């Protein structure tokens, strides 16, 4: 066998693998600070605080010395997209190891300077001391060339037993200015001479501009430019309120082709469409029949991210180049798509991240950025700030796909599951910028020279998209899991928290409850008996203990409780949930208990905050949320059309973290969606005997289920 002439470079941890230079991540400054440039971005999840902790830990410096630089295509490492709860595994591990190597290089210099061996050195807050006396600080040792090299992975990061900063609930570094009302969001950016833009969208996704008389709008006070490019319409004005008024008038001045061909809004419409069918898991003999057979069908509608702040961006052209600020989750893929749509070199586009409001997946952040760039192009030299209106966000953000999940199972004479089948139908869960063969930006499709969309698809397994969490974690002797992907969709679909894992885990966990009942078993015990993974069992046992779960407990016609479990993506956070509901005129979730295991918790309170928030959001989606549309377009355009859980309705929460410092840290942000919805459905059944298999769990659905 031929020997390789050169050893392949060693595989480096996390995003260090694709961004190997240490100075892309960390700069040690002479003034006693450390500049950190992560490629991952803050989207309301508190990630920056965890990254600060991981870096400070390895460098042995106080967290207050760290200065974070917003991610920018100009200098930051390309870490792809901040999504999938992967920021700790990718960005965190990269910084952990980059910092460990930086510390190693500093210690080498210190040893030389102090004339001692490495073993004699200790570090405290950046001051390196020799046992024999003498000390020198990082700030004296560091020169620009120190980190101008690739990582080697020769330095081992600290073991968990040495951690002092990691594993503590350091307060979020970004919260104080936010609760002080400081201008911290991209929505708050002000640049000298800044103008305001607004867009006027077509009445629906298929409609196109027929004609426009812009004279009236052009004559309105403050209007600087009316922008028309194909069916893309917008306006730039001196004042924001002027831009809003002008855009409304512009929409009324436009004549559109209607394109009124959207189907009825029913997830089961998916079953009528041509699908690409793929068996993604097959085990034993899926034709095995037990003593008793069961089937059930679960669905989920289109739902919205519905971020509290409509998307916003600021753009400025200068000499054929553009600078733009965005709350996109992926500034590099966005730059690539924008370059294609604008037919210009990537190098002439500089995109810098600025925070927006909470982001739960692919919302309109990328689209508004393209819009802002198009509007600003009409006024070279002038910065233009564009914030979408609420109806733009509801009407045009990419939604989470509707889904249908059909399950079948066979039980043996002891009630154990001997065969399991899971077949799902869904549109794509990933149409972010960065797709192949097209551009995933709304405005690009409306231009006079439109650039078609990339082919909608799914992230691959094991994480998966529509098939995320479709393969059960339960240990069944025979099983078959089938994914039916329907790429073309009436409304645009893309990633929303947990992707297909929301509907898949909801269906699996609802069906497990149905089977437990058929087997005459307690739903907690029934789950445990079908699981081998000790960490999975541990969260279920923990939550049962917290909620004082009683075997085979029954509801009383009004109140009831239900349990559910999932491991996010089958490889990240474990979460078990118990829901308590009270059913009167509507379903009220009165309490949710949760037990979570994310391996090593970098910031335990940060994990709890993510889980708690996800639980409430998931409860809201399960109880209330559904995007509606007619033949032309989306009709759910404001918070009255799309109610979410309010302060008067949110449940009490009790969440416990099973911290495993010895286990690799995994993402927490998306683990809640499926289990919470299922626990609520199971609780409703426990209370009333009404089995809800279609989200949302509205009054009409309960009445229908009771009479079924």
């Amino acid at each position, binding site marked *: 066998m031929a020997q390789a002439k050169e050893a392949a470079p060693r595989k480096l941890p996390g995003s260090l693998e694709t961004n190997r230079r240490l100075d892309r991540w960390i700069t040690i400054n002479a003034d006693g600070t450390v500049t950190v440039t992560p490629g991952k971005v803050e989207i309301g999840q508190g990630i920056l605080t965890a990254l600060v902790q991981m870096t400070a830990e390895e460098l042995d410096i106080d967290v207050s010395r760290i200065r974070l630089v917003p991610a920018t295509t100009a200098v930051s490492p390309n870490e792809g997209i901040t999504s999938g709860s992967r920021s700790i595994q990718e960005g965190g591990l990269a910084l952990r190891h980059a910092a460990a190597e930086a510390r190693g290089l500093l210690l080498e210099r210190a040893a030389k300077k102090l004339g001692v061996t490495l073993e004699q050195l200790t570090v405290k807050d950046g001051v390196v001391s020799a046992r024999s006396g003498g000390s020198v600080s990082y700030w004296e040792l560091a020169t620009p060339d120190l980190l101008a090299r690739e990582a080697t992975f020769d330095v081992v990061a600290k073991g968990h037993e040495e951690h002092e900063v990691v594993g503590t609930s350091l307060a979020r570094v970004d919260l104080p200015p936010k609760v*002080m009302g400081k201008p911290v969001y991209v929505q708050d950016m002000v640049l000298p001479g800044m103008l305001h833009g607004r867009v006027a969208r077509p009445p629906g996704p298929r409609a196109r501009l027929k004609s426009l008389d812009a004279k009236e709008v052009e004559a309105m006070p403050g209007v600087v430019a009316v922008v028309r490019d194909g069916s893309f319409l917008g306006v730039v004005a001196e004042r924001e309120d002027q831009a809003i008024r002008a855009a409304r008038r512009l929409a009324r001045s436009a004549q559109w082709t209607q394109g009124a061909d959207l189907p009825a809004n029913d997830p089961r419409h998916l079953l009528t469409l041509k699908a690409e069918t793929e068996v993604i898991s097959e085990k034993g003999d899926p034709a095995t029949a037990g003593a008793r057979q069961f089937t059930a069908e679960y669905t989920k509608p289109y739902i919205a991210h519905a971020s509290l702040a409509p998307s916003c961006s600021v753009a400025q052209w200068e000499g054929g180049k553009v600078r733009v600020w965005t709350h996109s989750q992926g500034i590099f893929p966005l730059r690539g798509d924008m370059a294609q749509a604008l037919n210009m070199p990537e190098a002439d586009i500089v995109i810098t991240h600025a925070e927006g409001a909470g982001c739960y997946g692919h919302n309109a952040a990328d689209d508004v950025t393209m819009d802002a760039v198009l509007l600003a192009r009409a006024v070279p030299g002038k910065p233009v700030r564009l914030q979408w209106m609420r109806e733009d966000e509801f009407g045009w953000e990419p939604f989470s796909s509707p889904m249908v999940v059909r399950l079948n199972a066979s039980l043996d004479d002891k009630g154990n599951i001997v065969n399991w089948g899971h077949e799902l139908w869904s549109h794509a869960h990933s149409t972010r910028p960065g797709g192949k063969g097209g551009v995933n930006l709304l405005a690009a499709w409306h231009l006079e020279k439109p650039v078609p969309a990339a082919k909608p698809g799914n992230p691959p397994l094991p994480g998966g998209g529509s098939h995320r969490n479709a393969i059960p974690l339960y240990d069944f002797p025979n099983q078959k899991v089938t994914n039916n992907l329907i790429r073309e969709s009436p409304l645009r679909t893309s990633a929303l928290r947990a992707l297909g894992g929301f509907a898949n885990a909801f269906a699996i966990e609802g069906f497990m409850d149905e089977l437990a009942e058929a087997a005459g078993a307690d739903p907690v015990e029934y789950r445990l008996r079908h699981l081998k993974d000790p960490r999975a069992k541990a969260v279920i046992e923990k939550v049962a203990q917290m909620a004082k779960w009683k075997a085979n407990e029954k509801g009383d016609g009004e109140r009831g409780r239900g349990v559910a479990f999932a491991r996010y993506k089958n490889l990240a956070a474990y979460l078990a949930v118990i829901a308590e509901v009270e059913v009167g005129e509507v379903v009220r979730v009165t309490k949710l208990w949760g037990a979570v295991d994310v391996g090593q918790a970098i910031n335990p309170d940060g994990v709890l905050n993510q889980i708690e928030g996800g639980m409430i959001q998931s409860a809201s989606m399960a109880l209330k949320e559904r995007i509606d549309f007619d033949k032309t377009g989306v009709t759910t355009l404001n918070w009255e059309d799309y109610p*979410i859980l309010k302060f008067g309705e949110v449940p009490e929460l009790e969440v416990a973290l099973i911290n495993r410092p010895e286990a690799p840290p995994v993402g927490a942000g998306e683990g809640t969606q499926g289990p919470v919805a299922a626990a609520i459905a199971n609780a409703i059944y426990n209370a009333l005997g009404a089995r809800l298999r279609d989200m949302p769990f509205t009054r009409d659905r309960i009445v229908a289920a009771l009479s079924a």
Partner: protein
Amino acid sequence: MSFELQVNGKARTVDAEAETPLLYVLRNDLGLAGTRYGCGLGQCGACTVIIDGKAVQSCDLPVSAAVGKNITTVEALGTDQALHPLQQAFIAEQAAQCGYCASGILMSVKALLDVNPDPDDAAIRAALDGNLCRCGTHSRILRAIKRAAKEMRKA
């Protein structure tokens, strides 16, 4: 048109059209960006300010309707040196994720505590009926408010 407003205890003159919502005047003319745009329809509460003691959504209130009234925004709640007890409690309880809803919630609750220093859970939830939070931080926010109310009663 020119309007004279009382904002955070100071007289401020602004030029705007009469129907311009107060929100844009605060954010863009007076540089008080802590009041946020969320919906423009008075449905989400991100733009809540206190006007003559009452929590009011500023996104659908014409500037002309605010003349002669005392307007308080989140910027007047505390200073960098002395945070308001509500702000301290929000930090102590880590009662935010994205924080975009925080300004409006703080102002709704400030208006409540000004008239009812010891509100029960139901009264707090009722005062926040017009404020949405999408990240799901409600339970931490409720905890922070109770903590702040207690601190303020002690003071």
